[in-house]
Structure formats: C-alpha cells, structure tokens
C-alpha cells in the first residue's frame, strides 16, 4: 500500500490528536480511583463504544477480513453469536453484581465472593497473562503494519523463470510475499530503485556478473545458477544482505511509546474516551470501505452474483452454520458450544480487561446500558470487518496471502488520500487493544497484589503513583516480549492457547459464584486450579499422542469447553463437601440475594 502526503498528514494528525486528547483527559486525575476506574464517572455510551473497539484489534481488522476471504461470513459468528447474546445476559445479570460491589477488578470480586486464595490465584493468572499478551498484540500488530505499508525487507530475484522465487523463498526461509520478481535487467533496475531490496539474487541466465556489478553498486547481490539453490546456499548467502532501513522492532517501539504516553497520563478515562474516537474512526473507515467496495462492483446483487459464480470455492461463503466435518476451522458444534457457551461468556463476563470499564460506570444503570449499547453496535461489526473480506474476494479472486485481502481491496478501490482514513482505522484498532490491556494489567497488579501483599494502607495518591509505575514497567515488558516474539513467531499461538487454559475455569467459578449460593471458597479454588490443570493436560495429550486427541488443528474452543465442564463439576462437588459460606457474607454477591 503506497501512502501519499495526504494519507501521512491524516495519520500524523490522528496520532498527535489522540495523544493530546489522552493528556488533556488525564489532567484531572488525582487518585488511584481516578486512574483505575475513571473516578466512577463514565457514561454508558462511552463504555459501550470502548467495549466494542477494545474487542477488535488491528490483527483482527486484517486477519478477520483475510479469514472471511477464505471462509466467508461464518467469521461473523464471533461477533454475532459470540457477543450479542452474552452482552445482553451480562447487562442484566452479571455486570450489576460486579458494579454493586464497587470493586476495581474481577479477582477483587472473587476475593469478596469466595476467599483471598481465589483472588490471588486469579490475579496472578491475569497479572502474568496480560503483560505477555500486550507484547504479543504489539508484535502481531507491527507485523500487520509492515505488511500493509510494505515495510518488510525485500529480496529482489532477477530471473527468466518466475517459479525460481518459490525455491529461493524455501531456501532462505523468507515469506514469498517479501520477494520482488523481475524478468529483465531494465525492470530490475527500476524495482531496485523503487523498493530498496536488502539483497538481489540474479540468475546467471539473465546476464553476466560484471554487468550487474555496475548497475547495483550499493546493494549486495548473489549471482547464482538454478541448480545450486538449496537451504545451505540460502543460509550462507542471506548473511550478505544489508540491514533494512526499517526494522519491525522500530514499529513496535514507536507504537508502544505512543500508547504508553496517553495511558500513563490518563488511565482508564483516557483509555475509554480515546476508544470512543477510535470506535468512530474504525467503524466509519471500515463501513466506508464496504460501501465503496460494493458500489464499485455495481451493487449488492452484482456482489452476490460474482461470489456465487465462483462455484465450489465459495459455496459456503454466505452460510453462518457449517457442518461438523467442514474443512474450515469453524464447525457449528465448536461455534455453538465452545464459543457460544464458554469462550464468549468468559470473555464478556470474566475478562478483567473488558469488564473493568463497566466497573468505572457512573451508575449501575449506566453499567447495564453500556453492555446493551455495546451489543447493538456489535450487530454492525461483521458488516464492517467480515463482509469487506468477501468484497475483496469479488474484486481480487487470486490473492495468494489472504491477510493481504483488505490491503489489496483498499489499494484497488480507494484513491490516495482516502487510504489514510483506513490506515488511521487500523491504528485505532491497535491502540484500543493495547491501551486496554496496559491499563488493566496495572490495575490488577496494584489492586490485587501490591495493595494486598505489600502496602495495604496508604494514601490514594500513592496507589496512583504505583499504577503509573506499573504502566511504564508493562509497556517496557511488552516491548521486550514483542522483540522476543520476532524470533519465535509461534509465541502468538502460545498466547491464544494459554488464554483458553484459564478462560473456561474462570467462567465456571464466576457463574457459580453469582448464581449458586452454595458455592464455597475451597470449591472455587479446586475448580480454578483443577480446570487449568485439565486444560493443560488436554493440550499436552493432543500435542504428544501419536494421533491428536482433537480432529481440528486449533482445538482451543473444545479445550475451553471441556475445562469449563470439569471446573464446574469440581467446584460443585468440593463446595458440597465443604462448609457453606455465611449468609451475611453472600448478601449482594449472589443474584437476587440482598
């Protein structure tokens, strides 16, 4: 994607505006309560928009459209089934219970409902997960940023045989889309000037080495014969590549610092109000791409006809419910039971980073209304995120890397100047996810760990100082983890797997805590630890058995479902075997028990 001066102006104005707005919002912060819960002053509309935009990261903006390009509207389940019903349940049942207790975190509520051990275990799980997750979000977003802006170091291959690119990609372990191909000398000179490759591979059938020496004096090049291309050849020659002008790590540091500044200054209030702007920019930008994309196809009927005419490849592209043995990772059974019953509930009712903003609502009514408003906005999200992926397919059916579907669509349909709007939307998605986890991690560490174990009694300004200190520490940890992730790409999958380990058990003890008076502290602790252990066991067995336990490649939906069930059973059995909590303690903590 090539951005013009107008695009860069839009992006710079947007970034400076966001930081300035965050700093402006932060000037009123005087205490820990202001910092962690925005002084309990947030209105429903701001929380609702913040909830929605925090759920959609930059990775989702690109990745969901890419998956929709491949699999179709089935991805819409993650917002429709995976958000709308549970947000309605949350609005009337769970959120009022949390808000009423005036807690700052979910672990704090668990401490009040059960005991201190459950609070600490839950706080440690979230407290460790969130800073690591921050780093991974930063890393994955930086990767997407570099793909969108075409910033990845490029390798130029000059050959009269295009298929050789595939062999060199395999030999050098560089992704195929980071190669530029040229079949003539003149074209190679032009592309070397335009794209600034870090190394050039020249097929000896194209010309003599001496010719190229004159042409490419500043770029290292390798003169090769087709037969010698092999992994050892690739490894030894890649050492000759010069350092790229823009490293992925620079993107990580730049984004980390921008987000860190306004979150440090403004706390939850800055996070939520910048999210409001980000929600408008993101939804506006994405819906604009959708309408413009369909308009360029000639209208909705033409769009549906083009997709329908693609035959077998797109026969399920407009189906939300796919068979159990579908070749996509989204069978209806996993979607309904794994996503609908466990992961969606765990996310919207038990994810500290999400629930925290409703705890900062100015009234219980605002807390309820924020979830309802969020649910209504969520109905729109697949139109903004999923369907553009299918529109991209209608415009460009032959994109090799699905993650480039959105970027290619935008490049195809949007004039320069409007690209900046989409790019600002991408940055909005990135910033809203990172600032949420950053502020939430600082809140858990200050409220549930520091305050509890190190300094239980102190002036509220002291906790403000500690909260800001944790914010600085965690953005540095995130940048470090992101740098680590650049060497181990599978770390992103690891983070997703870790999340599925404890989401099911966390949900089980929250649901029983709110709905069942008889659930006890020891029961919840057994359910939480037993559930996490069971998830780990399932995943270990799946990865080590000769034949994998699950028949899908990414079994996190099923792992979450089974660990939830086991956790539920363990909590019930141990609770029935232990002494019931006193009635006085349970008042206001169990549904309709005041």
């Amino acid at each position, binding site marked *: 994607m090539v951005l013009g001066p107008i695009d860069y102006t839009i992006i710079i104005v947007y970034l400076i505006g966001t930081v300035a707005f965050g700093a402006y919002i932060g000037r009123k912060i005087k205490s820990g309560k202001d910092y962690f819960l925005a002084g309990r002053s947030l*209105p429903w509309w701001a929380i609702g928009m913040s909830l929605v935009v925090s759920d959609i990261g930059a990775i989702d903006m690109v990745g969901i459209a890419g998956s929709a390009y491949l699999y179709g*509207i089935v991805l*819409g389940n993650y917002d*429709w*089934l995976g958000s*709308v*019903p549970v*947000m*309605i*349940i949350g*609005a*009337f049942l769970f959120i*009022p219970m949390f808000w009423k207790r005036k807690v700052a975190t979910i672990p704090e509520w668990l401490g009040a409902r059960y005991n201190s051990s459950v609070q600490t275990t839950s706080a440690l799980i979230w407290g460790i997960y969130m800073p690591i997750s921050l780093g991974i979000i930063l890393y994955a977003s930086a990767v997407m940023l570099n793909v969108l802006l075409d910033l990845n170091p490029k390798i130029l291959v000059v050959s009269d045989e295009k298929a050789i690119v595939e062999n060199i990609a395999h030999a050098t372990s560089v992704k195929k889309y980071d190669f530029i191909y040229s079949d003539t000398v003149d074209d190679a000179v032009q592309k070397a000037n335009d794209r600034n490759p870090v190394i050039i591979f020249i097929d000896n059938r194209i010309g003599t080495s001496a010719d190229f020496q004159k042409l490419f004096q500043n770029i290292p090049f390798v003169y090769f014969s087709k037969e010698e291309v092999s992994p050892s050849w690739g490894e030894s020659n890649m050492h000759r590549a010069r350092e790229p002008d823009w490293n992925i790590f620079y993107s990580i540091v730049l984004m980390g610092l921008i987000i860190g500044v306004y979150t440090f200054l403004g706390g939850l209030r800055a996070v939520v109000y910048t999210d409001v702007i980000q929600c408008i920019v993101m939804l506006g930008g994405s819906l604009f791409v959708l309408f413009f994309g369909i308009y360029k196809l000639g209208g909705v009927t033409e769009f549906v006809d083009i997709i329908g005419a693609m035959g077998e490849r797109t026969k399920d592209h*407009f*189906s*939300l*419910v796919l*068979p*159990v*043995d579908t070749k996509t990772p989204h069978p*209806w*059974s996993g979607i*309904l039971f794994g996503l*609908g019953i466990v992961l969606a509930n765990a996310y919207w009712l038990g994810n500290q980073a999400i629930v925290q903003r409703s705890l900062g609502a*100015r*009234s219980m*009514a*605002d807390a*309820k*209304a924020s979830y*309802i*408003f969020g*649910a*209504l906005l969520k*109905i729109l999200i697949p139109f903004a995120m999923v369907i553009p992926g299918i529109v991209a397919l209608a415009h460009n059916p032959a994109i090799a890397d699905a993650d480039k579907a959105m970027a290619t669509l935008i490049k195809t349909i949007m004039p320069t100047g409007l690209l900046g709007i989409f790019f600002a939307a991408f940055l909005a998605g990135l910033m809203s996810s990172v600032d949420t986890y950053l502020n939430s991690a600082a809140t858990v560490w200050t409220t549930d760990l520091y305050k509890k174990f190190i300094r239980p009694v102190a002036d509220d300004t002291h906790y403000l100082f500690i909260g800001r200190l944790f914010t600085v520490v965690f953005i540095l940890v995130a940048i470090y983890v992101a740098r680590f992730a650049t060497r181990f790409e599978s770390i992103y999958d690891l983070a997703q797997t870790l999340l599925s380990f404890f989401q099911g058990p966390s949900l089980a003890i929250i649901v029983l805590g709110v709905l069942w008076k008889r659930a006890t502290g020891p029961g919840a602790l057994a359910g939480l630890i037993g559930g996490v252990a069971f998830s780990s*066991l399932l995943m*270990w*067995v*799946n*990865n*080590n*058995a*000769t*034949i*994998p*336990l*699950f*028949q899908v490649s990414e079994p996190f939906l099923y792992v979450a479902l089974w660990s939830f069930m086991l956790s539920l059973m363990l909590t019930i059995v141990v609770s029935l075997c232990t002494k019931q909590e006193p009635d006085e303690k349970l008042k206001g903590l169990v549904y309709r028990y005041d």
Partner: protein
Amino acid sequence: MIKILTITFSISVSIADTIANFFRGPGQFLRDILMSIDLTIAKLLFILYFLAIAYWVYNLPKSEVTMDDVKSGKEIDLRPFALFAMGSMIIIYLIF
C-alpha cells in the same frame, strides 16, 4: 544423555496415547451424534438459543430493566433495545 531423552520422549508419548485413547471413545461417540444432526436442525438450535434469551429478557422484572437518565431523570426502559438486538440475531441467522 541422548538415550535418557529418547526414553523420556517415548514414555511421554505412550502416556499421552493412553490418556488419548481413554478420551477418544466418548469423544468419537459425541462427534458421531453431532455429525448426525442435520444442518437445518443445527441452525434451529442457534435460533432457539436466541429465543430463550429473548424470553428471559421479556420476563425480567421492571426494576431490573429500567434506568433513570442521569441528566433528565427520565426513566428509560432497556428491554426494547435488548429485544431488538435478539430479534436482529434471529433475522440474521434466518437469512444466512
């Protein structure tokens, strides 16, 4: 050292296989049941889930679904908005 690692690996694989075989039977049984469900019935299950939530919302007491607007003090009923959201879900799942 290599021998110890090889033995550890083969033991862990056989333990994993034993546990996997224990779960595989019931897992396959469940999978077979789910496979036998027609897609139309599956879609109906999604819609029944939305209907059940809509029914629950409809039957909630008024005190749990109304809010006083902070500025005007006017009473706002959240129930129609929640029912609209669930109605939209039903329509969307009927279409797609």
